[in-house]
C-alpha cells in the first residue's frame, strides 16, 4: 500500500511496483492509510510523512497498535529528529525523496524479508568471510575466531538479526544495554568502533555496518549462502 498525497508519486510508484509484479493499493490520506492497514492484508506500507490530515508519525503509531506490517517512510528531507521520531514510533526504514526505484525496491525487499523470517531461521549466518553462530554465540572471520565481550556480541546480534534496518541510537542502547539507557550515544559509538575493528570493517568503505550521523547505524552485510 502506498500512502502519499501527491497523485504523481502515487502513479509513478503504482506503475513501477506493478511492473515488478507487486499488487498496489494507493491512498492519499493518513486516515485511509490506517484503515487500509486494518482491513487489507498487506505485505508493506510505503508512507509519506507529510500528509495533509495526520502527522506521519501518528499514522505509524496507529498502525503499530494492531499490525506489524513493515513500514517504509518516504521522506522529503525531513530533519534528523523527524526521522528518529518516525523510526522510534515503529517505522522500519526511510527512503529520501527523490529516490531511485532500485533503492526503494531493495529496501522494500529487505523489510519484507525481515517481516517473514524463514520457519527455521538459520542459526549460522555468513557474511562473506564473517560467520556468526547465533546458537553457540561464536564469531569468526576467515575461520579465525573473533573474541567479543558480551556487550559487543549483544550489539552484533542486534545488528545481524535486523539486517538492512536502520537502527536508531536509542533502540540499540535499549536493546543492548537495557531499558534505562537511551542517550549515552558515546558508549555506543565506542562499541561500534571496536566491533568494526574486530570484524575488519572499514568505516570509510563499509561492507558490514554503515553510519547515519545523528540517527543510528545499519547492518548492510549481505548474507551469503552458507557453505555445506
Amino acid at each position, binding site marked *: 500500500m502506498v500512502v502519499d498525497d501527491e497523485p504523481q508519486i502515487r502513479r509513478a510508484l503504482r506503475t513501477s511496483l506493478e511492473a515488478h509484479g507487486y499488487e498496489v493499493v494507493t491512498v492519499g490520506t493518513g486516515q485511509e492509510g490506517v484503515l487500509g492497514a486494518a482491513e487489507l492484508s498487506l505485505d508493506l506500507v510505503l508512507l509519506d510523512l507529510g500528509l495533509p490530515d495526520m502527522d506521519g508519525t501518528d499514522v505509524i503509531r496507529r498502525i503499530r497498535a494492531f499490525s506489524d506490517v513493515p513500514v517504509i517512510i518516504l521522506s522529503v*528531507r525531513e*530533519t*534528523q*529528529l523527524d526521522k528518529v521520531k518516525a523510526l522510534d514510533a515503529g517505522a522500519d526504514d526511510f527512503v529520501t525523496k*527523490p529516490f*531511485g526505484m532500485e533503492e526503494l525496491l531493495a529496501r522494500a525487499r529487505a523489510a519484507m524479508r525481515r517481516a517473514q523470517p524463514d520457519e527455521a531461521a538459520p542459526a549460522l549466518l555468513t557474511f562473506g568471510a564473517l560467520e556468526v553462530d547465533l546458537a553457540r554465540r561464536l564469531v569468526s572471520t576467515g575461520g579465525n575466531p573473533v573474541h567479543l565481550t558480551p556487550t559487543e556480541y549483544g550489539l552484533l546480534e542486534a545488528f545481524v538479526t535486523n539486517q538492512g534496518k536502520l537502527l536508531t541510537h536509542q533502540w540499540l542502547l535499549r536493546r543492548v544495554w537495557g531499558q534505562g539507557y537511551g542517550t549515552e*550515544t*558515546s558508549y555506543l*559509538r565506542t562499541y561500534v*568502533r571496536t566491533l568494526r575493528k574486530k570484524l575488519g570493517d572499514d*568505516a*570509510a*568503505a*563499509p561492507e558490514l555496518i*554503515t*553510519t*547515519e*550521523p*545523528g*540517527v543510528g547505524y545499519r547492518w548492510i552485510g549481505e548474507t551469503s549462502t552458507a557453505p555445506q
Partner: protein
Amino acid sequence: MRITGRVEQFLQSSPNPSWVRAGAIGVSAALLATLVALPFARTGVEAAIPFYLLAVVVASTGGGLRSGLVAAVVSSIGITFIFAPPRFQLHVDRVEDVLSSGVFIVVALVVGLLVARSADMRERATHRERDARLLGYLATKLLSGERLEQVLHDVAAALLEPFDLAACRIFATLDGHEIRSEALRSGPTLEAGAFVEAPIMIGGVTLGMVTAVRSVGMRPFSSSDRELLEAAARQIALAVERARLDARVRGVQLEAETNELRAALFSSVTHDLRTPLASIKAGVTSLLTGTVHDAEQQRELLTTVLEETDRLNRVVGNLMDLARVRAGALVPAREATDIEEVVLAVVARMQPQLAGVVIRLRLRPSLPEVFVDPVQLDQVLTNVIENAALHSPPGGEVTLSAASYRDAVEIRIADQGPGISPADRQRVFEAFYRGGAEPERPGTGLGLAIAQAIVVAHGGRIWIDGAPGGGAVVAFELPVAGERSA
C-alpha cells in the same frame, strides 16, 4: 580597605555634623590639650599655647570648622583660667597674656578655617573622582555593545557602591518590551529607607526610571548625589536609545541581505533550475515521440535525465538549506560528536561521487569530541568534499586532515585543482559565487555558503588557504565538546 572606607565615611559626613558632635570633638580636643599642658602650668601661657593650637588643628581636621571653633573657644577659656596668672580666675593681669590670648584666638580661627577648608576640598575631590570614575565606567559600559539587559544589570550593580545604596532598580522600555534590572547589596537584608528616582528620558519621552534606595539609618541623599544619579540616568537613556537603533539597523541589514539573496535567487533560478529542467524535458520528449529507436541512444537520454534530476535535487536542497540557515531556522541540535565517525560516514556515502578522485584521510588519533549537530557537520563535510572533488583534475588527490588545537578541532580539505587567488578567498563563501573563469561547472555555487553559515552558527570559523601544490584548502574549526555537553 576597610579602614580607608571608614575614614572616607567620616570625612564625607563632616560638612554638616550636628553641633553636639562638633562640640564634643572640640571640647575633648581642648580638654586633652589642657591635661597634656598641665605639668607646664607654672611656666605660663607661652608653654600651653602650642598644645592648644594642636588641639584646634586636630579638631578642625576631625570635626570640621565647627569643631575647630569650639576647640578655640574652650582653649581660650583654658588659657585664661588655668595658665594665665592669676590662675583659676577668669581674669588676666598681664597685658602680654591678654595679647597672647587674643593672638591665639585669631591664629586658631585662621588655622581652623584653613584645615577645615582643605578637608572640605579633599572631600570634594574624592567625590569628583568618584563621580568621574562612575560616569566613565557608565560610558564605557553603555557603549560596549552588550545586550541591554546585561548592560542595565551591570550598571545597577555598579551604582551600589559609590552611592552607598542598599538596592538599585532600573526599569526601561525598549520597543514596547520591558526590561527590569535590580541589584541588591550582599549581606544581611536591610530595611529600605530613603530613596531617590531619576527618569530615563529621550527627547522628552520617559523610557524608564532609575531608583536608588538606601537602607534605614543611612545618610539621606544629598543634592550632589541626586545630580550624579540624574547624570547616570541620562547615560542609561543613551544606552537604551542605542540598543533601539542597533535593533533597527540590524533589521534593515537583514532586510537588505534578504533582498540581495532574493535578487540572486531570481537570477540563478533561471540558470540553476531551468538548465536541468531543459535537459530533462528534451530527453523525455524525444523518448515519448518515439523518434529515438537506437537502444544505446535511448539509454544515453535516460542517463542524462537521471543525472539532471539529481542535479536539480541538489540545487533545490541547497537553496532550501541556505534559506533555512539564513532564516535562522536551522538551529543546530548540538551534541558531543565524534568527528572521525562522521567523516568516515560521509566518505562512505560519497563513494560514487568520489570515483574520479583519490581521497586520503589524515585524522589524528584520539581527536576530542566536538560539540556540534552531527547532521549539519555531515552537510558541511559533504559540501566541502564535493567542492574539492569538483575542482580536482581527474585522478587528483583530495586530502582530509583533522587535528585539535586547544579548544577547537581544525579540519582541512585540500585539493589539487587550480586553487583560489587570495583576492577571491572571501568571495567563494558568497551564495551563487563560482570561480568566474568556469561558469559552467556543475556545482550550484551554494555549497560553501551553506558550509559557512553552518560553521558560523556553531561558533566556528571557515576560511580558504592555498595548498603547497597549488590547489585550494578549505579549512574550518569547530569547538571541542566541554562541560556544556556533559
